């Protein structure tokens, strides 16, 4: 989604700007991160949500599935329910904490897997070229342009609704994006002197790939990564919204918005609170991605 077009432009620019590639851009990147306001805000938000996802549910005041029909529709800031309750009397805060865990988990989890798989495939394809490249790149090209939601509908239609289907669908497509970028970068990098030099010195392929190529490839991959997490979060929420994602009583944030939509005129908080949460989470991730991109891309940075 937002990832792809950016990626194309980014790729072109990266390839051109790799004249100045050096083996350890990563360290420099970290330092610059601290100085860039956008990236800082974005990472703060993303880190916050990550933290909430990991430890939040431990602090939940109630069990997320605990219903209390007589306590339904409490407004936020009611006693005992900081964010109010939903139509079945479940504590919104507790559900939100678990929902964030699910969304972030799905987002980061699928992206991590996609990142690893994509990097490996892209690296292998770009480095070895020849037949390996043709085959691997063939797969990548085929999968890359697919509308994620279409695949999800078909997969979920077959497997039945549930998080498993969502994870499968998202993972099925997103790895290709990473593979594409990594391959492109590796294709450019492998001609560089330091790579040729290492080869001449007799260093093994694996050594070259991990020590020289990987660190240079990681920045772009990470930039894409933050976008992809946002994509995964939105897709999971959207699928849950139309009933194909997480099932009751699992409180996926998308599902919370969905459940609340029948009560918009009666008690809008049921949808509003999780809705705002998704917006903030995705915003944070996008800002992080933008910030990272700005740091890592000297040409664009000059224009700012």
């Amino acid at each position: 989604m937002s990832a792809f077009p950016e990626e194309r432009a980014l790729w072109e620019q990266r390839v051109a700007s790799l004249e100045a590639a050096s083996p350890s851009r990563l360290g420099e990147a970290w330092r610059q991160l601290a100085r860039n306001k956008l990236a800082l805000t974005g990472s703060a938000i993303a880190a916050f949500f990550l933290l909430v996802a990991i430890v939040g549910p431990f602090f939940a005041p109630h069990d997320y599935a605990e219903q209390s029909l007589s306590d339904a529709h409490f407004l936020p800031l009611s006693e005992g329910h900081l964010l109010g309750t939903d139509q079945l009397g479940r504590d919104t805060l507790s559900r939100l904490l678990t929902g964030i865990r699910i969304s972030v988990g799905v987002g980061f989890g699928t992206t991590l897997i996609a990142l690893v798989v994509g990097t490996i495939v892209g690296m292998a394809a770009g480095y070895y070229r020849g037949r390996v490249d043709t085959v691997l790149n063939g797969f990548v090209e085929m999968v890359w342009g697919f509308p994620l939601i279409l695949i999800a509908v078909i997969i979920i239609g077959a497997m039945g609704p549930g998080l498993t289907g969502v994870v499968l669908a998202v993972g099925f497509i997103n790895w290709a994006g990473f593979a594409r970028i990594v391959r492109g970068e590796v294709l450019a990098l492998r001609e560089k002197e330091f790579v040729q030099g290492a080869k001449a010195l007799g260093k093994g392929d694996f050594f070259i790939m991990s020590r020289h190529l990987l660190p240079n490839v990681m920045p772009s991959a990470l930039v894409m990564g933050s976008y992809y997490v946002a994509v995964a979060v939105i897709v999971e929420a959207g699928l849950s919204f139309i009933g194909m994602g997480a099932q009751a009583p699992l409180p996926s944030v998308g599902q919370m918005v969905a459940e609340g939509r029948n009560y918009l005129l009666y008690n809008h908080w049921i949808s509003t609170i999780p809705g705002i949460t998704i917006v903030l989470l995705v915003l944070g991730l996008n800002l992080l991605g933008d910030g990272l991109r700005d740091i890592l891309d000297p040409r664009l940075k000059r224009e700012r």
Partner: protein
Amino acid sequence: MLQYLARRSAYMLLILLLSSVGVFYSLRFAPGDPSGVAVSAFAREEVREEYRRRSGLDQPVYKQYFVYMGNLFQGDLGKSLITGKGMGELLKYHGKNSLILGFAALGLSYLIAVPLGVLAAWRRNTWIDQASMGGAVIGMGVPNFWLALLLVWLFSLQLGLLPSAGCCDGKHLILPAVVLAAEGTAVTLRMVRASMLEQLGQDFVRTLRAKGLPERRILGRHVLRNALIPVISLTGLRLGWIVGYALIVETIFRWPGVGYLLVDSVLRRDYPTAQFFSLLLVFFVVSANWLADIAYGLANPRIRRA
């Protein structure tokens, strides 16, 4: 160039083939089958077995696949198991609605994004730039279903200006088109701006400025054309993503397009309809990508010359 072309075409065909298999198998893997819908869930098992036999549903799946593909190539697209309507008829009705929605959304997004993006790049770091970029970031972050809820709440419930769902006139088109266009607009906006900025930083622009050309001409004649190249190749991808997003938007607004039909037919196990429209959408997306790749190849001198 030719090699590039041939490679991309080969990929397209391969995808279509694999997708057809994938769609076919996954539908049949799902629980439930059309006999409960076409005949009656309350009918005796023998009656439904009879139906399955007659429709060839008791054959092994691969055989069914070949029969289906064979029919497809002979022009027999199949009929809906639920309504008996032919695929052609369904395509006309639902396809028309989807095209209307898709082009409205696409048009809307470009209409807003391109001028605004150019403006933002030209007036870099002014309030216009900040505001557009801010809007774009938010536009990318708000999930479309939530945006749909907000717009419905505002325009249907509170103001009573627009209908909350349904089809098929201008009034019903506005909200779904806006929701569908939202994310694309944000992305395109950023893309246009970034692309413009990149071009503006090129040496040839400095040269033109040194020559004394008015800024407007530089922008309009030289910079814009180059800047729009990646945006054009973007269109192919955008179409693909609109197809994907349209599924959700159509379902929310009950706009009877192809996406809505697809979700509905998958849920009801209306095999012929689900298969045909899945393949159709895949074909559409793949073709759009293919065309975009061709356009990109033509525009990018490195590839064109190869």
